């Protein structure tokens, strides 16, 4: 799912400068599920505004919708509320914010920095990146472990010389993606796969902005 990080209050105050009535919109999609931008987090943000020197003067209305990346949901749920506001503070990922922005005539501002596509480890309460949306998936060849995401150099044929005790030279706590792949393929009895040298990736699939037929 899409992982985000809430912007610092100071930055939000800057982007909301001069706005009197702000509609804070939570998104109950990815960011809601990960407790980063759902209805509760929208309420919490409004409550934090009340404690801020500058933002306490902003009149906030809080609502949340099922997902902000769906224009019809956004329009249905927010049209009336948006008519009353000077700006919308959207607690979605970057895609959601843009859908809200193009739906109304008032500015839609991001409450988050969109971090990555990833997963949450509940025990350590940490999010990990797992996919860079390269447009050319090779997980069937690598035991379900993505070297493009999990190797800092995105090596297609690893490991490299920076390997030390199964860890990566960039961070001694980071597992080497290619060691994980080796161990997994060994367990699956598919080590032969490593004998095939993988071609460089087709980067034409990652040119921005991308679109595709449904």
């Amino acid at each position, binding site marked *: 799912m899409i992982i985000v990080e809430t912007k*610092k*209050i*100071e930055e939000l105050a800057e982007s909301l400068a001069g706005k009197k009535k702000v509609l804070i919109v*939570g998104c*109950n999609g990815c960011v*809601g*599920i990960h*407790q980063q931008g*759902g*209805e*509760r*987090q929208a*309420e*919490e943000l409004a*409550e*934090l505004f*009340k*404690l*801020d*020197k500058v933002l306490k003067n902003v009149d906030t209305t809080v609502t*949340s919708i*099922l997902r902000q990346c769906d224009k019809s949901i956004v329009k249905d749920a927010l049209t009336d509320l948006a008519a009353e506001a000077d700006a919308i503070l959207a607690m979605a990922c970057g895609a959601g914010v843009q859908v809200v922005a193009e739906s109304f005539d008032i500015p839609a501002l991001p409450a988050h920095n969109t971090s990555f596509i990833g997963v949450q480890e*509940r*025990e350590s*309460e940490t999010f990990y990146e797992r996919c860079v949306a390269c447009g050319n998936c090779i997980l069937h060849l690598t035991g379900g472990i993505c070297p493009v995401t999990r190797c800092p150099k995105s090596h297609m044929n690893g490991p490299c010389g920076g390997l030390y005790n199964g860890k990566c030279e960039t961070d001694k706590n980071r597992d080497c993606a290619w060691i994980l792949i080796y161990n997994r393929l060994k367990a699956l009895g598919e080590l032969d796969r490593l004998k095939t040298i993988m071609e460089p990736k087709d980067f034409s699939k990652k040119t921005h902005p991308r679109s595709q037929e449904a």
Partner: protein
Amino acid sequence: MSAEPSQVPDADVNVREESLPCYQCGICSGSCPAARLESTFNPRRMVVNSNLGKTKIPANNKSIWLCAGCFCCSHNCPNDVKVAEIVAELRVEAAEVGNLPLVIDEKKCIGCANCEYACPEDAIKVDPGTMVSKVDPSLCRSCGTCAVECPVFAISYANFDDSQYENMIMKTLEGLPEGDPKIIAFTCNWCGHTGAESSMAPHPNVGAVNMLCTGRIDPLFIYKAFHAGADGVLIAGCAPGRCFYKWNNKKAESRTKRIKRNLEELGIEPERMRIDLVEVNNGAVFSDSFDSFTEELKKLGGKK
């Protein structure tokens, strides 16, 4: 994260038969932590009523869900009446007529399973068919942590819902004298409250809000307390590893970290928030903590 099941009172008892030896001494009610929290929860009365055949719990009697299955009543009964089991059986009958410990708004629930991960009793689960959370009333011990975890406010408790707690916070704040820094202490009913209560009297600037568990402490309560004029907020919970609800004190600790970070961003000193996880009978720690906290808040001065 799956919870090891707690010892749950066996609901499969004949309440009329079990209540026969009761001579109404009231030790059960006197030793009940839930009765301390809510006077309408009265185990002795429930045993007497069972004996009289009045086993039907009225739909509006929600306090029966406050029983957390600690067995203090059963252990203390001089005649070995299985009080906890009687209450458990009455709860089964209450659930049958739709009286439940918590209500899940099915339209709001997004099936995210945060409640399921948070529940220390494995009592709440997302139904794979409907993708909506469902509570097993026989396992729920009303700790309240699921309501705090829910990102869409879909869970509301039968006892002590959000507005009730918010009223308690406001009332407690109003009752604190002007002058010394005002401290709101959220105290866990199991450990913190007993410890803090004994140290309360010499500290008139500290107002306690008794919670069923530290897991029920919503960050919103804390922000609202600060907004309403509290100078400091203290959480008093069970010592590490001794939480009655397994990991809720840990949960409160990690939420505290996040809250402190947010306060710091706002230019509010994070020292204005404290969490003390202390053994139940260690009231002296709270007394010292109240003293040092008051001193620290005096040094910090009023909130900017």
